């Protein structure tokens, strides 16, 4: 009695949902499927649409210009997660089996969804690629074979930030006695760097103070008044969404120089700066991808995709920070597929095969030039032990209208991050009863 309606409802929906999914036909055989767990609604829509817009545009470019990766066309399907973990998991499960060989990889674009899906990815042998977000210790490939924080993690970028501050102060030894404040989003994402900052504070002798901002961070007066009392030399901002412009405005009110504020890459998009208006001028943000259209690959996209009205985003958002980040994601993802194809043949590959490709990425400067992404992507070489590969970030400064790059690639302090990551990964492995792979045997 109780559940019969629910059952029939479920059945009915199942029929409709089932009918909506075309069965993979023979004609699709030369296609590689990419899931797009986008968020077009909710508080973070700007990030979701920008990032995946760039990603899809890059795939469209490869399809249009090159006829796919070595003749294997890329297909993709969107699934709205609304930045909700539960819906993210549903999207993962919905999309993981699509296409002739299943999902190539999964880009959660949310630290929470990364946490909820990476174990499923390991079980299903589908790589979860958390480019610049997710677990800090995920770079330890022996414990996380299917998790790829390519390019850089929060931990790495944080050490780059301290290096940048050191450079600005005129040497790392000058950090001694300086006061740095870490204003962070009070969530898993925000807390990720507390430990590493404390460690660095002890190493370099600067003073660190952490201020959590309660989600969503609409009003931060109390925090910024305290910061005013402390009068720090630098403020590190780990914000997300509406918290960013609010923090910048509050900084302006207490008269704290925005040129002494360093944002993480989720605090460094046009969408974060514009609402803050003139107050944002001078704000500096770290990023593993510089914005702008001045890259061959972006020009190619405009020509091959947007000029033909096949863009996956409004044309005026091409070249923004989020967009370029999506393009970088596309470059790395497809490069992994290409490398895997060299080993497994020029055909649609399974997640397991692409995992090999992701683990053997080798973006040399020459290759980056060939891809038309000079200056957009940093050289990256991954391995079984190292799933991060690059680790460098560039800093850019907001001039009131757009971002201006103010530094070259600044390398992370891998000597510090790596042991911490390994320690944390081993703790995880122990908790979960995982025996780490022996990477020396997998070359």
């Amino acid at each position: 009695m109780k559940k019969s309606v629910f059952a029939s409802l479920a059945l009915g929906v199942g029929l409709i949902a089932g009918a909506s999914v075309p069965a993979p036909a023979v004609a699709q055989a030369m296609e590689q499927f990419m899931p797009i767990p986008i968020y077009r609604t909710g508080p973070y829509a700007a990030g979701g649409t920008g990032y995946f817009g760039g990603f899809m545009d890059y795939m469209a470019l490869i399809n249009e210009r090159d006829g796919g990766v070595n003749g294997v066309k890329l297909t993709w399907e969107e699934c709205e997660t609304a930045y909700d973990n539960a819906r993210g998991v549903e999207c993962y499960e919905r999309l993981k089996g699509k296409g002739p060989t299943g999902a190539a990889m999964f880009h959660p674009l949310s630290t929470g969804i990364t946490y909820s899906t990476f174990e499923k990815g390991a079980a299903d042998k589908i790589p979860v690629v958390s480019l610049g977000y997710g677990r800090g210790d995920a770079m330890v490939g022996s414990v996380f074979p299917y998790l790829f924080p390519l390019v850089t993690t929060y931990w790495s970028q944080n050490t780059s930030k301290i290096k940048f501050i050191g450079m600005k102060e005129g040497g790392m030894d000058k950090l001694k006695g300086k006061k740095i404040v870490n204003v962070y989003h009070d969530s898993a994402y925000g807390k990720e760097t507390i430990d590493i900052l404390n460690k660095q504070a002890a190493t370099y002798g600067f003073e660190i103070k952490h201020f959590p901002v309660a989600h969503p961070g609409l009003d931060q007066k109390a925090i910024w008044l305290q910061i005013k009392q402390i009068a720090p030399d630098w403020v590190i901002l780990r914000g997300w969404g509406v918290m960013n412009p609010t923090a910048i405005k509050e900084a302006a009110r207490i008269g704290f120089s925005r040129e002494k504020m360093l944002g993480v890459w989720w605090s460094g998009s046009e969408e974060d700066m514009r609402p803050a208006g003139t107050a944002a001028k001078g704000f500096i943000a770290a990023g593993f991808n510089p914005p702008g259209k001045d890259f061959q690959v972006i020009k190619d996209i405009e020509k091959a995709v947007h000029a033909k009205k096949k863009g996956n985003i409004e044309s005026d958002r091409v070249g923004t920070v989020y967009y370029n980040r999506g393009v970088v994601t596309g470059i790395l993802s497809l490069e992994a597929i290409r490398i895997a194809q060299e080993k497994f043949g020029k055909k649609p590959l399974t997640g397991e095969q692409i995992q090999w490709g992701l683990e053997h990425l080798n973006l040399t400067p020459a290759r980056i030039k060939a891809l038309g992404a000079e200056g957009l992507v940093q050289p990256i070489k991954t391995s079984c032990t190292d799933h991060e590969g690059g680790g460098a970030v560039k800093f850019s400064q907001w001039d009131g209208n757009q971002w201006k790059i103010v530094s070259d690639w600044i390398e992370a302090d891998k000597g510090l991050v790596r042991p911490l990551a390994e320690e944390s990964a081993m703790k995880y492995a122990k908790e979960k009863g995982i025996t780490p792979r022996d990477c020396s045997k997998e070359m």
Partner: protein
Amino acid sequence: MNFFFEVLFGGLLSGIMYSLVALGFVLIYKASGVFNFAQGSMVLFAALTFVGILELGVPFWPALLLCLLVMMLLAVGIERIVLRPLVNQPPIALFMATIGLSYLLEGLGQGIWGTQVRALDLGIEDLPNEMIQEALGIQVSTFDLFSAGCAAVLVGGLALFFNKTRVGLALRAVADDHQAALAVGIPLQHVWAIVWAAAGLVALVAGLLWGSRLGVQFSLSLVALKALPVLILGGFTSVAGAIVGGLIIGASEKLAEVYISTFTGGAVAAIENWFPYMLALLFLLVRPQGLFGEKIIERV
């Protein structure tokens, strides 16, 4: 000591910003007994519409008028489509309808005007007012003072409207009992449309002020969460309560955040999400109807 006053003033002025949102809730509750969950979405919708109209090239004041007109139309529409069929349903059904409404408005607003984050500049500097800084030695933002002024004008207007006009009297009658009000010949539909239009006006003002501070984006709808403790502290039915409640909540939440986190060495921080609720809760234990709320008399 200066620091204390700075936090206090900052808090009071933040409180005014919360009150602005709370006012919208009070209006509708007072006039129809509905806890309007969609008030936050109305704030978002109003701000989105305003910015959207500006982007079409319409100058500021005509855009404001146009936007007001849209909010009025919306109010009439809500009355027609949502409220009229639900006359005389229990309050919880009406509450739920407003939940549906809030989804609808979010989708509609963002569907029409896009999900992009937009800046909104009212031309008032959100920087410390120099005159006050010289005179009192504390930093108070010009923008906050402006918001306080807006709130004062709104409250004054609403108080007059409720207490001195026939419509105001009708509103209060309707809130008390839909059926009885209908029986004595009060046109329920008009009254509801008017009050929702007024709530739309309040939402527009709140949307402009909050929007110029946060940027016009989805998170604007979350300002409602800041208004709820104000609402229960001040009482659902009192315009004055919304203001006084806002002041109390704003000031105490800032003072608590600063001083509790200092005393505990940062261990107890980021309490702004729950502290105002706890405070309001404790207060309610003493006065269950809120500061200025009408005493609930129960008959068996």
